[in-house]
């Protein structure tokens, strides 16, 4: 490996070393906010009466792709909704 590419690798490694945990903290905080949002959107279909279900319904398509990861994180091995079988 040439000197400059080795230097680049070390540099990259160092910044990853420092930034890594800090970055993950932000990713975690962000995920918490997103999980809360998902809960609000899905409330009615999870059995929690939601008077704003009419409005949250239109948000559903945008959050859909995160649904699988969300329910796994929430500790539900399989999809909690009988009719959505993502896994």
């Amino acid at each position: 490996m040439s000197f400059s590419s080795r230097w680049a690798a070390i540099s990259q490694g160092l910044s990853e070393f420092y930034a890594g945990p800090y970055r993950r903290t932000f990713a975690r905080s962000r995920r918490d906010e997103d999980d809360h949002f998902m809960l609000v959107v899905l409330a009615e279909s999870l059995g929690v009466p939601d008077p704003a279900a009419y409005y949250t319904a239109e948000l559903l398509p945008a959050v859909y792709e995160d649904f699988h990861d969300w329910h796994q994180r929430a500790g539900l091995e399989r999809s909690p909704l009988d009719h959505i079988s993502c896994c």
Partner: protein
Amino acid sequence: MSGLVAATAERHAIFVGGKGGVGKTSVASSLALAHAQHGSRVLVVSTDPAHNLGHLWEQRVGDDAVTLWSGSAGRVDGIEIDPSRTVDTHLASVSQTMTRLLPDHLHRAARDHLESARDAPGTHEAAVLERVAETLEIGLDRYDRVIFDTAPSGHTLHLLAMPDKMTGWTEKLLANRDRSERFAVAYGALGGTKDTSDRDAELRRLLLRRRARFSLMRDSLADPQRTGFVIVTVAEPMPIAESREVARQLAELGVALVGVVANRLSPVDLMPTRRVREDAQLERLDLGAPLTRIPLIDELVGLPSLDRIAASLT
């Protein structure tokens, strides 16, 4: 022009409300007719689930506008809103977006999922509000005035409070999005590569659009230049007590009260004692808006009856 017609002449949107059975539909319709006779184009919208508009005008009225009366310059069109149609349209459009984004085998599942929203507690009201907003928009485009024949008091007050509440609700969700996006930016600044900016932009767009609709509604409802409320009552203790309560809540909501109509007053020659009692009741009633008296009319149905009432309003 005088009387209630004059009082409501400046407003574009008028809500006619009151206890069940006091004659809201007849007052709303007559008011519309009176304005039309003066040359305005008026749209009457019934939000009461127990629609009486068609019966009163002796015509078939539905979710689409139907001309009820037409004169040299003015006219009256009528709508009996069908909230379930609104719900259908709304869910269908969401469903379409979902099927566009999802693989085939999940289409039916997605539609089933949306069904749960149909029966949710606030859906009917949300649909009514949607339709009110819509008809107001068309109304102010193609008509000079929109008069709403509303559901009995409680429901209507709740409906009028919704835009403000929902603005707050949307703002909380937008705050959540703000925080999430800010974290995403910090994450990216530290070298993160996961990019959800499309999804974030879409959610934000949807929420902003919703908030705009709600805050627009809220502002126009609270705008005394544009919106007015007419309370219809009969001269009996309970309806009067309820009218006082309605007036108080309207003041809290910031909706302007422009008139009170005492309907179905007993004929003085046939029931003098009763009439005296009624007058006494009305004497004590002061809600801060001009009072209009309308006598009891036998067999109130059809255009001629409406004409008679219209005359009292002018």
